[in-house]
């Protein structure tokens, strides 16, 4: 059995009454790339955390390179040659790439700091050259893009001599170009004999990169198959027991008049950088307007400016209600916006850091929008509680109850709670940022269908997205931002991915 890098047998892990992994079997051959697929909460991350020493299994055996082992801590895992890149990077911002990479390693001898850095940087360069990474060892982490940070995490593991790599949703935060680069690197690593496990939700990526696919459902291992024999539909079917969700039901938009218009709006970040540069557009009731762009092109500032969370330095944001007078949103704080009766719903990118309070339960999170309603000193908890129960039932939120802190829910369920609350007020404007990030296919399509329902009900929907395939299928029009500037608005029914890609980098190339 020497050919297996990892063999898991009957691995079980429960948290309280929740069975996260139920007698899971899994094998990783040496020098292969294995993709792990599964819905949110199907136990993928838990399983990988047991391999990297963060959790300890209740039952079952783990064999590494044919030998049975006990992994008690991340150090044990690291000594067995297992390295994991987590979804949330664990880097120190004020350190350079090189400093982060050697952090926690025992030094051979105490050289001067500069000599040591030189030696480390040299070694990092060799690794980068060998596998095709692009990295500056002296760059500080806070100056890095997401993809650069990921590079540091991967090199950190290689530097430590690991030969089994676990990547937890590495492409969720990358642009298509960055994903391509990552995959090229992974193939080089594979050629050098490293074994790799990659967790992802994107089927096309599974088909592109992996040799075999392992499927988890509700904490159980379902099947391991060769990727070459699998087609996308077949995989989805296996994951969701016969349900397929590969079509978004897009209706023709009905023009019901402009809801929001932005005229020459510029937004400057606290550090003085111009994040949004003279942007003008209109969005109408009954349409979905997509917002595309390389991450950090001003998407966040765009939606936050409309919500009143960012101050527009110049320009006007005007809201046109179905009836009554137009209102100037750009001069209002978020509390004023809701007080003047503007039904603005916003699903921010940072769900637990902005949209919800992680330590509060479902009921209290529903209150976030409504607590101030009604007169008097006391806050009404009955209506939010009913709303929470309603959302749980309608959107099939998996939770022990409405008194569970939302932090304990899985990513997809957190998003359902947030979206459920935001659409409950029957908004006239609905803004969503990366609504399906980190969600499995089934949850993602639930969310897309909800957006379509809102559109048909006459809401103006603004959807910031990263997956161009989805934006092209979901939206009516797509506006593209590049470096804070609006580079174009295209018709989603006729535009191609390439058109949008050109607009995405249009400004970037001039700089």
């Amino acid at each position, binding site marked *: 059995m020497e050919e297996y890098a990892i063999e898991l047998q009957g691995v079980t892990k429960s948290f309280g009454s929740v069975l996260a992994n139920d007698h899971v079997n899994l094998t990783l051959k040496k020098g292969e790339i294995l993709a792990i697929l599964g819905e949110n909460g199907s136990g993928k991350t838990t399983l990988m955390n047991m391999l990297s020493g963060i959790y300890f299994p209740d039952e079952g055996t783990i064999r590494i390179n044919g030998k049975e082992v006990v992994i*008690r801590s991340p150090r044990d895992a690291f000594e*067995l040659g297992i390295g994991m890149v987590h979804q949330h990077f664990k880097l120190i911002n004020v350190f350079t790439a090189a400093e982060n990479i050697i952090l926690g390693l025992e030094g051979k001898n105490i050289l001067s700091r500069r000599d040591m850095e030189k030696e480390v940087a040299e070694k990092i360069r060799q690794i980068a050259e060998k596998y095709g990474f692009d990295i500056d060892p002296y760059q500080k982490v806070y100056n890095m893009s997401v993809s650069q940070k990921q590079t540091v995490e991967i090199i950190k593991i290689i530097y430590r001599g690991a030969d089994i790599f676990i990547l937890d949703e590495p492409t969720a935060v990358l642009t298509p170009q960055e994903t391509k680069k990552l995959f090229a690197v992974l193939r080089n690593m594979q050629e050098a004999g490293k074994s790799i496990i990659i967790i992802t939700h994107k089927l096309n990526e599974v088909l592109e990169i992996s040799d075999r696919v392992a499927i988890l459902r509700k904490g159980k291992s379902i099947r391991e198959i060769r990727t070459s024999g699998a087609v996308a539909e077949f995989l989805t079917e296996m994951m969701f027991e016969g349900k397929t969700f590969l079509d978004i039901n897009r209706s023709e938009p009905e023009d019901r008049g402009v809801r929001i218009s932005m005229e020459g709006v510029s937004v400057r970040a606290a550090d003085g950088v111009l994040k949004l540069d003279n942007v003008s557009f209109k969005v109408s009731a009954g349409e979905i307007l997509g917002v595309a762009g390389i991450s950090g092109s001003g998407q966040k500032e765009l939606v936050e400016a409309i919500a009143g969370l960012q101050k527009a330095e110049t320009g006007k944001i005007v809201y046109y209600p179905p009836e009554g007078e137009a209102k100037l949103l750009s001069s209002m704080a978020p*509390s004023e916006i809701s007080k003047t009766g503007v039904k603005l719903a*916003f699903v921010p990118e940072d769900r637990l850091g902005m949209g919800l*309070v992680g330590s509060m339960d479902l009921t*209290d999170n529903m209150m*976030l929008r409504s*607590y101030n309603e009604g007169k008097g000193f006391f806050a009404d908890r009955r209506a939010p509680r009913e709303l929470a129960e309603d959302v749980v039932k309608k959107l099939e939120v998996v939770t022990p109850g409405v008194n569970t802190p939302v932090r304990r829910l899985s990513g997809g369920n957190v998003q359902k709670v947030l979206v459920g609350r935001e659409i409950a007020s029957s908004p006239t404007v609905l803004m969503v940022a990366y609504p399906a990030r980190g969600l499995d296919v089934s949850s993602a399509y639930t969310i897309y269908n909800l957006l379509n329902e809102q559109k048909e009900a006459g809401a103006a929907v603004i959807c910031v997205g990263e997956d161009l395939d989805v934006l092209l299928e979901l939206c009516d029009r797509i506006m593209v931002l590049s470096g804070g500037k609006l580079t174009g608005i295209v018709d989603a029914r006729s535009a191609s991915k390439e058109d949008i890609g050109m607009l995405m980098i249009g400004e970037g190339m001039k700089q």
Partner: protein
Amino acid sequence: MRMIKRGSISRSKALCIRLAAAVLSLLVCAIVIVAITKQNPLEVYAGIVDGAVGTGRRLWVTIRETIFLLIVAVGLTPAFKMRFWNIGAEGQILMGGAVSAAVMIYLGKSLPNALVILLIFVSSALIGMLWGLIPAYFKARYNTNETLFTLMLNYVAMQIVTFCIVYWENPPGSNTVGVINAANRGGWIPPLFGTYGMCVLLVAAVTVFIAIYMNRSKHGYEIAVVGESQNTARYAGINVKKVIIRTMMLSGAICGFAGALIVSGSSHTISTGTAGGRGFTAIIVAWMSKFNPAIMVIVSLFLAFMQQGAIQIASQFGLNENASDIITGIILFFLIGCEFFVNYRLEVTIKNSPKH
């Protein structure tokens, strides 16, 4: 051995763990007592109980110390719940006390007693409010560090009280203010059912109010959201600056009012020791109780009980008062330490560690 986080734990099991910790702590205390003092631990325990509740007078003193600690802890709760590290309760108490003394000295002889007491309550709450407002304003406006700010204000309050003592010195040369209005008891909170009955009622009212305020009111909800995430608060349309300022004014007002209770209800004088470290001890009370006012009552009572017991065993057994601090320390160690076992369970793995 591994620590495993418990997903959930039944109430009865958690209670068992805490009771076991309490019993264990008394056993360890007994061993320490025998080892160090060669006294019979049961007699020492009896001494503590006797000191705390042995006579009617002692019982009232213990109750007094309990409620003074409790009201400060209750006052700190809104601020701490908002993650505003208010360690300035000491100063807020002193300022409340100083203003109470001023009202007693200047108006206590001329106005009717009820009016004087009312003025004491209002003015002490107002000055405490101001003492809470100052750091809150700077936090909201300039994002200054509230821990340092509130701490420094304690020293300012201390200096003001020192100045007042010089100014109000009575009799001259004593370097103290002496008992104010000893003759007509102007501004003294009258007894009710016993020496401090009125104070008990007032503290109970404040405690119940804060419990409702934090758990049922819109303000309480805003405080919880701001404490968890200011970003979320802004998103929900909560005016974060306003909430910070309002909450600290409330917190300061209650601590200032505590100063009035201490001066007007108990000591009838003012000194730099009026707050007596309660502003800091109350932080422990608030945290140990996880900001639950009902538990705060129990924790305050325990600390006051041990403190009064200490005074007794110090004289009875010729120990110094630190002996009781050791006992309190051991008991707290076990009670706080047992929370670990409420949250985690230990598991012993039999297999050998991997060989490399």
